Every structure is written in C-alpha cells, then in structure tokens.
C-alpha cells in the first residue's frame, strides 16, 4: 500500500510535481476565464439595460443559449468551430494552419460561458442600486464611464459579490471539462498518470482532493472579501 503512494510523491518517478503543475494551469485558466467573464458580463449587462431593443434582445439570446446548453457541448462546439474559423481565416491571409488547443483557447471558451452567467448577476446588481444614487451622481455633473466607475460599480459590488463567488467556484469545477479537449490542466494530468500507472483511484482521488482544497480556500477568501465590500452598508440588512 505505501509503495502506491510513491507514485504521487515528488521523486523522479513520482507524479507529484506534474499534478501541482496541472493545478497551477487550472488556476491560471480559471483566473483568466474569470477576468474574461467579468468583462463580458459587465458589457453584456450594460447592453441589456441600456442598448437599443434589437441589441438587448441579442444579448438576452446569448445568455439564454449559453445557460441552456451543456458546458461540455459548448466547449466542444467553440473549440471546433473556433479553430475552423481561425484556420480558414489564416488560410485566407496566406498562413498555415494553427493549433488552437491550449490554455488561451480554454480561457476564451470558459470566459464566454462565464460571461453569460455573470451578465445576469451584474444586471440584477445594477438594478438593485437605488436610482436616487445615479440621479445624485448626474446632479453632480458626472456622466458616462466616469459615473459607471465612480458610482455604479462600487454600489453594485456588494450585491454582485455572493453570485460572483459562486461563479468562481463553478468555474474551477468547469475548468475540469477542458481536459476533454486536451489542455494539460489538473484533471488531464491526473488522467495521464492514472492511465500510465493503472492506479485510477489514487490519481483521481488525489486530484479531487486538490480541487476540494481550492474550493475550500476560495470559499474562505470570498467570505472575507464579501465582508470587505459590504463594509459601508448598513448592518440592518
């Protein structure tokens, strides 16, 4: 039994450092996708609330579609369609085919899925802002992006925090799906280890424990961050 655990230690034959590298890749992909999702979510939420009707309807369609289709299917679809479009574009411009597999594509794909969920959270958070606050800001002569950055964003942050923390946890879990298209993140590394040593249970349980630690730490940190963004709010809530 103890001999089995040598497989995941940090010696030359051990998979320990490979798994940690996979975890690092998972965290990088998740963080990147979170930032992309944050940006898409903010833009789409603003468009849903303020843009002319056809554009707002288009944005609602994006949210509905991306929340109704399984993430795994979206990842496959965006990977293959994306790589095909990119390659035909490259071919037209006279370059050779490009290999799209890799962290960057994973970040974009997960970010697009993430953006759909984030936009709904931001829309609700923006709508929760008392309108008087916006009017007050206008009365002070603010407008456009300045108003958004100085007034809308800080006031809506506490309303959006809990939802975004949940999304981050979901994102870490969804990032495991990327292993299906062959990016060497944590689950993919575990799969390789399991396949080559035939100790499936050991590798998958180890990887699961690593994901679990990440979610536990995330929960703890997001709880603290939430208290911090809420600090100006009346306690009565």
């Amino acid at each position, binding site marked *: 039994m103890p001999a089995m655990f040598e497989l995941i230690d940090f010696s030359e034959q051990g998979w320990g450092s490979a798994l940690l590298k996979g975890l690092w890749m998972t965290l990088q992909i998740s963080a990147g996708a979170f930032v992309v999702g944050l940006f898409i979510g903010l833009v789409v939420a603003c468009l849903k609330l303020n843009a002319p009707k056809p554009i707002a309807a288009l944005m609602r369609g994006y949210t509905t579609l991306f929340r*109704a*289709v399984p993430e795994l299917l979206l990842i496959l679809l965006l990977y293959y369609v994306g790589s095909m479009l990119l390659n035909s574009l490259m071919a037209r411009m006279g370059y050779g085919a490009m290999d799209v597999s890799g962290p960057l594509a994973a970040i974009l794909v997960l970010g697009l899925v993430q953006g759909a969920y984030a936009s709904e959270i931001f829309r609700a958070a923006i709508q929760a802002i008392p309108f008087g606050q916006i009017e007050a800001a206008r009365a002070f002569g603010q407008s456009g992006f300045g108003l958004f950055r100085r007034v809308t964003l800080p006031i809506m942050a506490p309303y959006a925090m809990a939802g975004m923390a949940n999304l981050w946890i979901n994102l870490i879990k969804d990032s495991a799906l990327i292993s299906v298209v062959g990016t060497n993140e944590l689950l993919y590394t575990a799969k390789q280890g399991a396949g080559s040593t035939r100790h499936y*249970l050991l590798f998958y349980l180890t990887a699961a424990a690593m994901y679990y630690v990440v979610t536990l730490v995330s929960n703890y940190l997001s709880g603290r961050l939430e208290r911090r963004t809420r600090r100006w709010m009346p306690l009565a809530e």
Partner: protein
Amino acid sequence: MIPAWIVEYAALLGRGLQTSITLLLFASAFGFLLAVLVALARISKNKVIAKASLFYTSVFRGTPLLIQIYIFYYGLGSLFAQFPLIRGSFLWPYLRDGYWYIVFALVLSVGAYVGEVIRGGLLAVPKGEMEAASAFGMTPRQSLLRVRLPRAMRLLLPTLAGETVMLLKSTALASTIAVIDLLGAANVVRAQTLQVYQPLLLVAGVYVCLTFLIEALFAFAERRGTPLRRAV
C-alpha cells in the same frame, strides 16, 4: 431540405435522446429522495449525523462532477474488475456498463446540491404551521410528510426548476465514459460522417428545447399549485 446525415442517423440520435432523458428521470427521482434525506440529516439535532451530511455536501459540491464520474467509473470500476467474485456475479453486466455509474454519480451529486436547497426550504416553513400540525395530533413523521415537505416544495419550485436544468446539462458528461447519450450520439455521427460541428449544433438545439420544456413544466406546476392547496 433536411441534411442526409440527420435522416441516416435519426435512429441513433433518437436513442441518444432517450438515454439522456432516462438519465435525467432516474437521477432526479432517486437524487430527490437522497436530497430529502440529506436535508433532514443536515437539520438533525444529532451532531454526528449533521456533521457527516455537511461533509458529504461540501465534498460533492466542492469537486468537479467529471472527476467524481471518473472516480466511480475508472476507479471503482477497475477495483471491481479485480475480484472474480464480482466478475462472476449477475451484477457484472451492470457494473461494466458506464450507464449505471453515471446514474450513481448524478444521484449523489443531486443529493448534495438539492439537499442544500431543500434544507433551506425546510427551514423556511413557518414554525407555527409545524406546531399546528402537532396540535392536530400528527406524529412528527406525519407532519413532516403532510405539512413541512409539501410547503417547502412549493417555496422551492423555481429553484428546483433551475437545478433540474443543471442536471440535464450534467447528463451530457455521460458521453465522456462512452455512454451514447445525446452528446455521445452526436460524437458518433461526427466520427462517422467527418462533420466537424454540425451534429453538435443540432444536439445543442435539442438541449435548448429540453430546457424550455423543463421550465414550462415547472411553471405549470407552480401555477397549478400542490394538490393540498387546491383542496382548500
């Protein structure tokens, strides 16, 4: 008008759809039962039971479903295969098939996610109604089944609709362990016809339709109310 490959593979895609739907039904039915037990354990006065159930929900909600599926299918599956006793038993044909591993994984996952939801619902039922139930001479078990659970369900219908849609999307993970569900069927068609993404688009459309169907069913249930409510 309809592309030839859809006609040719209609039977396969139909079977895939059937597999996805039965997965959804099995997992939601058994998962719901487990979820009620988990919720009751979570609010139990017995500290050990409450802690154990908290740990279960935390682990199953804190790790990716895909890795749970791998643990059951590859991990337990390869473990089972080592015992001749299990290999020889009448259960082996079932233990070899990825389908039941997916059902098992989905049931456990639904138990954890929906268990948390139901716990919230049970805690949201006003205390006075529980007291009224026991004043009518109901045993704790009767008041749970006749008053507390139905009330909680009514409060939770919109949330449960969301959870069911999540479950539908989770069933697509069946394709990763060679179960031919809707997505699995699309992958077979892709491999055989060399079409890169058209089959994926088709099944994406089917998933969207199924989502709307689930939402419509729950909206209908919400409008109609529970039978108890109508009797009044």
